[in-house]
């Protein structure tokens, strides 16, 4: 699978030691994780295809190459835990609490159809198509409603678990943040608040090296972003964001720390934004980022990394690994045949639901500014 030179180099660097949590996973857990990586990837490439076909408008913010962060961080959560995803975490909305069964309606995550209805801007989206892309949420499913305002939901995440703790709960909240967004003042205020009150807030940094057109060295001046944690007196962990198991291990460590009452932490997941900031930016990104950097950043595809680990652990044969080769390919280079059929099927049903959902009535635009009942 190691096709490019950079990939081969990286492959050699890879150390596949399993951590405290991942070493307890079963073969079927591994298989499930891999399947989820495929699904997250498929979500991404399928939407691009839909847009190319003209079935879809609006900007797409791709999680391509960053799927291990979403999948690995969600895998060990309790159903009662909260999450606060942002623009690059779209699959998280429907992958939360996947362990309860992808199609289980009582699962503490959104249905894939709901999320697709959001992408399509239809009335069956969680917010009835009032705000776009990832700006949805569900208090019933314990997903904080995201907004455009970067880092703007971290205080709410702290508030949600503060309330939960008061009510005797043990919920943890994961907040997802691009590394660039952490320059926001409110990031500081919220993490500091969580530190003071030892709140179970796990701050995941998806350090994909770029914030739109700005490289990290113009955003902050540390090599490991996780060191930001030292400034709050809380733990800061670094995870290999391409390795779903390492993400799982580090996040679970942080979650355990949080759940035991020790407070917040930061988990930096090192990764790389494979394409443009959004799909509108793909062409420009090819100009403002050096090709070598991009090639190197894409080389360790999380699906490929997981396959290598599974082979090494004896959970997969080389032959099986060659079955669905979605890794290392852009949206235009893959077809449905590169994905496990259950993944294609699952998302297709969601899209089916979405396209059959109508637009909201115009009058809804004037509704729900206030709640009327007292």
């Amino acid at each position, binding site marked *: 699978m190691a096709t490019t030179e950079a990939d081969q180099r990286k492959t050699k660097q890879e150390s596949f030691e399993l951590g405290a949590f991942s070493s307890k996973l079963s073969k079927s857990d591994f298989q499930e994780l891999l399947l989820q990586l495929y699904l997250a990837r498929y979500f991404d490439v399928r939407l691009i295809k839909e847009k190319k076909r003209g079935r879809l408008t609006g900007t797409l913010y791709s999680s391509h190459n960053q799927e291990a962060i979403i999948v690995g961080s969600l895998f060990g959560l309790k159903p009662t835990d909260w999450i606060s995803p942002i623009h690059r975490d779209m699959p998280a909305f429907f992958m939360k609490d996947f362990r309860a069964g992808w199609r289980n309606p009582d699962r503490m995550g959104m249905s894939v159809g709901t999320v697709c209805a959001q992408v399509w801007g239809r009335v069956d989206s969680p917010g009835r198509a009032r705000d776009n892309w990832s700006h949805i949420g569900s208090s019933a499913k314990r997903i904080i409603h995201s*907004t*455009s305002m970067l880092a*703007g939901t971290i*205080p*709410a995440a*702290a*508030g949600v678990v503060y*309330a939960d703790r008061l009510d005797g709960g043990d919920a943890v909240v994961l907040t997802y943040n691009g590394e660039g967004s952490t320059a926001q003042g409110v990031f500081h205020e919220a993490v500091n608040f969580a530190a003071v009150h030892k709140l179970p807030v796990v701050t995941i940094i998806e350090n994909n090296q770029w914030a739109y057109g700005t490289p990290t060295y113009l955003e902050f001046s540390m090599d490991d972003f996780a060191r930001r944690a030292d400034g709050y007196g809380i733990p800061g962990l670094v995870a290999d964001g391409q390795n779903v198991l390492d993400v799982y291990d580090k996040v679970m460590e942080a979650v355990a720390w949080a759940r035991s009452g020790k407070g917040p932490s930061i988990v930096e997941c090192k990764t790389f934004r494979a394409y443009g900031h959004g799909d509108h930016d793909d062409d420009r990104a090819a100009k403002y980022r050096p090709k070598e950097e991009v090639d190197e950043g894409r080389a360790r595809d999380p699906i490929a990394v997981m396959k290598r680990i599974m082979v090494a652990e004896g959970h997969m044969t080389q032959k099986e690994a060659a079955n669905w080769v979605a890794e290392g390919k852009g949206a235009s280079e893959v077809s449905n045949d590169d994905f496990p059929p259950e993944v294609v099927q699952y998302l297709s049903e969601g899209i089916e639901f979405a396209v059959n959902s109508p637009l909201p009535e115009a009058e809804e635009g004037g509704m729900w500014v206030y*709640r009327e009942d007292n």
Partner: protein
Amino acid sequence: MSVAEPGLKKNYLTGLKEAIFEEFESDPNVIAIGEDIGFLGGAFGVTEGLKEKFGPDRVIDAPISEAAIVGVACGMCLNGKKAMVEMQFIDFISTGFDQIVNMTATYHYRTAGEVAINMVIRGPAGGYGGGALYHSQMNEAWFANSPGLKIVCPSTPADAKGLLKAAFRDPNPVMVYEMKELYRQNKISEVLKANDEALVPLGKGVVRREGEDVTIVTYGNNVYHCLQAADNLMSEGFSAEVIDIRSLVPLDEDIILESLKKTNRLVVVNEAPMTCGFAGEIVARMSDRAFDLLDAPPVRVTRLDTPVPWVKPLESFVLPSVNKITEAALRVCRY
């Protein structure tokens, strides 16, 4: 903290206190967060005794982080609490601005009614005390232009208590502009009712003085200036009706319309800078809805379009005063 002793006159600050203590008492989901509201009891003592009584979990001495304070409160509300946010001075709300207008105010709208944020944001506001640029503001217009927030501004102890209680009970975020110059003005003290009896509905104005010749619409501190101006007008032979709208959003337009039917003349008074202030909003609504009723130009008396300067001569120069209101009303009456 004594709650609603019958027969005793209480000041404005006590009205606020009683509202908070009663709501804390009756609903265990009520929480307070703000700077120095616990050990100190707040810069003005509005929450004195609250932390002792209800504990540090429900009364949070927050770091100096207005954005996080609002956002954390918003998250609490998202998860079943009713949060009261105290701004130490309403002027400092600017650093929590985004969390109010983009996060909190829009929540119900963008979730298509799924989530209502039952938050109260309150704090000492207004000039006339020599507080200068950053301890005198009336910045309610920023929020009136940000859909999803309700805004009230009580002028009496009973309204302070009743509107604040109503703000707690309302499922939406409500901002309470408290007039700090009235906090301890004993001459406006009055007997307060207890519990549900004390409630004052949001969105209802009140006629503070009846009159025939001109309608003066105002709120907050300026209610008293307008009442004095009405005295002056009387000696000039004009009788002014003074309306205290109390609630800006929602606004009781009918009470103004009713009055205009009688007086056909309108003066609107408030402390905020004139441009895009709430006085202009009232004028604009009435110019449309009551066009045929108006026999004279509707006139505003507001702060000049300046910050609030410190020393008395400067502050007086820029803020509305009894004289300025009297003059404006005379101009309108004699039009």
